[in-house]
């Protein structure tokens, strides 16, 4: 039994966060590897259309697993970390959607020439960890 003088035993929040972050990292790396392999496979025409479809679905499932692992991390982490992560997600979402749509308008108007919008995904992926770091600095 815990008293006020005895800190709670068992899995600490730090251990739990480490475990959950590790899960997110593993799934994200698996997704990234699968995404790269499938992209290369499609470009080089390694597989038949049936195998390609299965590979795309497999990659999407790995992405879903990454999202679910991240959701578990958000649910179980302590509340300040959750706030920082959610604020970072909001910023990354804003960069992707509003930055992307602004750029799209520029492309439609002919002000800029754009071949694809893949850089937007890169911008979102980079914005999130940067916003997390800035969030930790803001609250410390």
């Amino acid at each position, binding site marked *: 039994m815990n008293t*006020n003088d005895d*800190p*709670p035993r068992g899995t*600490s*929040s*730090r251990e739990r*966060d480490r475990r959950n972050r590790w899960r997110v990292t593993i799934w994200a790396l698996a997704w990234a590897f699968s995404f790269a392999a499938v992209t290369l496979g499609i470009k080089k025409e390694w597989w038949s259309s049936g195998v390609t479809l299965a590979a795309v679905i497999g990659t999407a499932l790995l992405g879903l697993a990454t999202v679910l692992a991240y959701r578990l991390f958000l649910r179980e982490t*302590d*509340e*300040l*970390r959750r*706030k920082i992560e959610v604020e970072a997600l909001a910023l990354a979402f804003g960069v992707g959607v509003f930055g992307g749509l602004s750029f799209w308008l520029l492309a439609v108007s002919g002000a800029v020439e754009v071949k694809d919008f893949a850089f937007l995904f890169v911008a979102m992926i980079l914005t999130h960890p940067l916003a997390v770091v800035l969030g*930790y600095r*803001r*609250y*410390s």
Partner: protein
Amino acid sequence: MKNRLKVLRAERDWTQADLAQRLEVSRQTVNAIEIGKYDPSLPLAFRIARLFKMPIEDLFDPDTNT
């Protein structure tokens, strides 16, 4: 929102890490609450009050900013 967390913690000779472990939050959360940069959720505020055995309104003063 001003609070007495730092004083109460010091009275018990606890570090921020000690308090964080008792509240099952991160040390950063304890630090952010103490310096007034973060207001805890209602469940966490109740946990703090229970730990220090005092009413929430004796711990937190919503009318002042730090």
